[in-house]
């Protein structure tokens, strides 16, 4: 097999987000986490449920850039919101900004009254984060994205969930952040972000330089695991034969 790419390492890291998770809806935003979820489904997490991101639950596991041919359920937005409130979901969101405590910002850059750059708005990030497990996928890890403090909190971080009281923290669970450079969790002081592993060939210093706040880390930083042969075959031949993953993480 040819050399393992950074995108393939990130796909396996996204698959690992779903280890030990059974019958829930896995909702990935982005190409790499979508391949990762489907890889998890075909390997260690066969009970995961996936949708087309619109209104259909899939009854098959198509390639990332191919339509499903088997529908297993109906999930218009009104039903998705019921499922979210019931907690049967793990979302992988993106974000224009994320901070040390895991607050995410999808909405705007600058001041809310007159933003320098208006982006999407809050969407359902606030709902997602207080109702079920949330992870993040950031394809381009940079100090512009990993900031000390986000400009507007859409997805709720650990400090904000604590401050909002038991109703906010009861089902709030930030799991991990996967980027093109490494994998992070929230095992740092006060539930802050900590480096879990660096992708092969990436140094701690490189990750710290791309991060706008001091990163917590163990004394030695392990390397993110490589996908095994079966996973590589599934990624390359079944789930993403046209290398859409490299649109997000160039080889």
């Amino acid at each position, binding site marked *: 097999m040819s050399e393992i790419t950074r995108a393939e390492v990130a796909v396996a890291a996204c698959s690992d987000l779903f280890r030990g998770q059974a019958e829930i809806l896995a909702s990935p935003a982005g190409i790499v986490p979508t391949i990762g979820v489907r890889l998890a489904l075909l390997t260690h997490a066969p009970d995961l449920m996936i949708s087309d991101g619109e209104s259909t639950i899939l009854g098959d596991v198509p390639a990332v850039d191919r339509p499903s041919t088997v529908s297993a359920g109906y999930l218009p937005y009104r039903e998705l919101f019921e499922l979210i409130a019931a907690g049967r979901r793990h979302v992988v969101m993106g974000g224009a900004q994320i901070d040390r405590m895991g607050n995410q910002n999808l909405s705007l850059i600058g001041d809310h009254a007159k933003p320098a750059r208006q982006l999407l708005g809050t969407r359902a990030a606030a709902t997602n984060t207080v109702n079920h497990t949330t992870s993040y996928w950031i394809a381009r890890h940079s100090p512009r994205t990993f900031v000390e403090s986000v400009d507007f909190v*859409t997805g709720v971080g650990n400090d904000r969930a604590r401050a909002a009281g038991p109703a906010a923290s009861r089902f709030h669970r930030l799991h991990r952040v996967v980027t093109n450079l490494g994998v992070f969790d929230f095992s740092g002081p006060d539930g802050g972000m900590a480096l879990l592993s660096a992708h092969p060939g990436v140094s701690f210093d490189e990750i710290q330089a791309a991060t706008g706040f001091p990163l917590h880390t163990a004394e030695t930083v392990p390397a993110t695991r490589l996908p095994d042969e079966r996973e590589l075959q599934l990624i390359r031949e079944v789930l993403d034969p046209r290398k859409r993953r490299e649109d997000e993480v160039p080889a």
Partner: protein
Amino acid sequence: MSSKVLSAGDVPGLFSDGMTIGIGGWGSRRKPMALVRALVRSGVRGLTVVSFGGPDLGVLCAAGQVKRVVFGFATLDSIAVEPHFAAARQAGSVDVVELDESLLVSGLRAAGRRLPFEVTRSGLGSDALAGNPQIRTVTSPYDDGEELVAMPAIHLDLALVHLNRADELGNAACLGPDQYFDDLFARAATRTVVSAEAVVSTAELTRDAHPSTLLLNRTMVDHVVELPHGAHFTSCLPDYERDEAFQREYARSASSAPAWQQFRARYLDVDEAAYLVNAGAGNE
């Protein structure tokens, strides 16, 4: 029973300055764009627009008719950021009530149910709440004592929605993949206008479709207007997909004031029949 059918020419008479108008659809999907175009031609100003925002919001902001926006997001789907809404925000020319999608659903549902608020967990800890003192919390009266969001009802003066089929009594069918929250908009409003691709007989509504496709019944609807391609350039499945080429042209019109004036003259300062010809709607 009497017909609720209006001619397209009667629509502008429904609009007045300062109204709160809820607009159905979602992003750049099944938006009542022909009704929005009528709203632009009417010239009413100072509107509060409530929307899961797409080009409906963008067009009205660009036309300078919006004072306040109550929204969960604004996007063109295949183009992530709604460019005219973004321009209005960046110029500081509209006030916003920024909600989470689910908070907006709760506010509309509370209004339709004639309740002061709906209890939800959504929004806790986020700046949708922290930045908005109008949204308060409520403590559970039961043993759990949880402090939850009391999302206030969002009352609408007028709701505008576009569906695939309607009859003249105001029963209307959604034949596409998602109803979004059009029924909640209809119930939250003092008056609801439904535009439809076709106005057909009641029997015709369920000739080839299950009764479960009838999203709106006549108690929820005040006016019916037949407006073929009435969601153009947004999608209205299964009747038509989004007109992506036209949407790109719309997005480019946010690049400068002259570009917008040109777009407006060609597509908005003309009647609906001329719009459909100029936009090539139905030729795709």
